[in-house]
């Protein structure tokens, strides 16, 4: 049997490797392109500003859905930020290398891998049922806080760790306590990184569906308080496609969703690029 020359193998392998890259990009282009092209005819200012009418064709727009989404995301971030940032500060600045820290890190890592629907079950049992918050913005937000906490902690911790060591030494040498150093030197320096973390979590909150499907209730009415139900853009896409078969409206809502996500992705990439460059320049 003649052996295939290493050069032929190399050429074939390059076809395989580049093929993989091209298919990956194609998947992205097909998904995004299809939703944008199919959704574009349904997009208008009117669509964004009128309330959904319900019914089998899913008439109307998505105004109440946008308000619910923003409301939910704002409540979530308000609770998530102090907890996530606090935990990140502990892990980056205070934690000693001991068993307790390993347990805390295990908690963060494992929580990050728990699927959305399990958070949904938990939220349903604790917030919706046991605490009598019913299907509401508050139940949904509390569930989202649990789900997003690991992401928030990791990204904030990275932001803290990117601050050059010299900042800490300088502050401590001037007689600052550890907390003075953290609150007046590290946090301002890490602020752009923390903002990036927040935007990243906003993006993930908008993408999330399963845990909200069983905690938010899905009402299409305008939310009036923390205890009213609601539906996010993602949930709206699901209901339109599965319950009313209103595919045109679903595509239009999907297009809004994708444009939002692309904007958020671009913003986080740009912010973190600038932050990294500034921190490297500051050493």
């Amino acid at each position: 049997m003649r052996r295939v020359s290493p050069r032929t193998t190399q050429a074939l392998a390059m076809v395989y490797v580049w093929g993989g890259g091209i298919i990956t990009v194609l998947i992205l282009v097909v998904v995004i392109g299809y939703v944008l092209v199919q959704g574009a005819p349904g997009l208008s200012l009117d669509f964004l500003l009128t309330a959904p009418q319900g019914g089998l064709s899913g008439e109307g727009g998505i105004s109440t859905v946008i308000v619910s989404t923003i409301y939910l995301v704002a409540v979530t971030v308000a609770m998530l930020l102090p907890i996530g940032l606090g935990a990140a500060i502990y892990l980056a600045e205070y934690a000693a290398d001991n068993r307790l820290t390993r347990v805390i890190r295990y908690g963060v890592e494992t929580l990050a891998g728990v699927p959305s629907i399990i958070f949904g079950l938990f939220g349903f049992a604790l917030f919706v049922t046991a605490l009598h918050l019913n299907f509401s913005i508050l139940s949904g937000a509390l569930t989202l806080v649990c789900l997003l906490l690991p992401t928030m902690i990791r990204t904030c911790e990275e932001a803290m760790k990117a601050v050059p060591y010299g900042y800490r030494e300088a502050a401590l040498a001037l007689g600052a306590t550890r907390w003075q150093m953290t609150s007046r030197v590290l946090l301002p320096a890490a602020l752009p990184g923390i903002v990036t973390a927040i935007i990243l979590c906003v993006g993930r909150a908008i993408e999330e569906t399963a845990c909200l499907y069983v905690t938010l209730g899905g009402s299409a009415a305008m939310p009036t308080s923390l205890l009213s139900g609601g539906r996010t853009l993602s949930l709206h896409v699901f209901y339109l496609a599965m319950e009313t078969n209103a595919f045109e409206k679903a595509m239009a809502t999907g297009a809004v969703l994708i444009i939002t996500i692309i904007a958020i992705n671009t913003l986080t990439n740009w912010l973190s690029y600038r932050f990294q460059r500034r921190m490297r320049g500051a050493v």
Partner: protein
Amino acid sequence: MSRHFMDRLARYVVFVTATLSFLILLAIAVFIVKEGAPTFEKVGVLDFLTGGVWRPGQGQYGILAMIAGSAAVTAGSLLLAIPLGIACAILLAEVAPSGVRRFLRPAVELLVGIPSVVYGLVGLVLLVPAVRHIGGNGFSVLAASIVLMAMVLPTVISISEDSIRAVPVAYKEGALALGATHWQTIWRVILPAARSGIGASIVLGMGRAVGETMAMIMVIGNSIVFPKSPLDPARTLTGNIAVEISYATGIHEDALFATGIVLFLFIVLLNSIAVVTLKRGTHAQSLA
């Protein structure tokens, strides 16, 4: 208040916030077990896990068909995502010029960012009719596997790429100096050295696949049957919970929480395996 008091107070406060993740994890376990455990008493663990019939109306609670459904779509998606993802990871880490890399990496990140309902929607409108042409009614394990492949792909790519990059340059230089071609170096030296990371990427991808819910509900048909061919519809464990929890009561509700226990244990097991393999991999490389 003295600054030293503030310093001590702050230390306690940030410590408490840091323990919350672990406490939430514990609370999830406690709540799901508390709600789901009665099922195991009433139905029996073995009957619950190996029962083929799920008819809540008649008090029959067996999740074997859903286990088979989840296993089928997970296996299907990994079969597609592993060769594709590893190719893309090699391209990013070893082959592509920096211009291509600068374009490809954000594209992979964007794949993670696309909401699962959007994948489900595109699958529902494009893939389901396409599968219907081959046979069956289109809502199928095949359509679900393809949708899931797109969602698992970024996990496989990014963790495999990291582990390929973590291989010491000396390995590569040594192989090239001995006259190996670039591909021989990648195939015989770099990939074997990075295998634990690549393995971990597959395990983590598997975790994502098992946990995915909404996109699966949209394309798999949700019928409670054993899928016998890729063209058959099925129902996943996650889909079973999501579809029925809003109207379930009594033991039916308990049984859904018990489904959650099975899912939760499986995911925690997968993640622990991934963490251990990744640690072992970095340990071996730091010794080199």
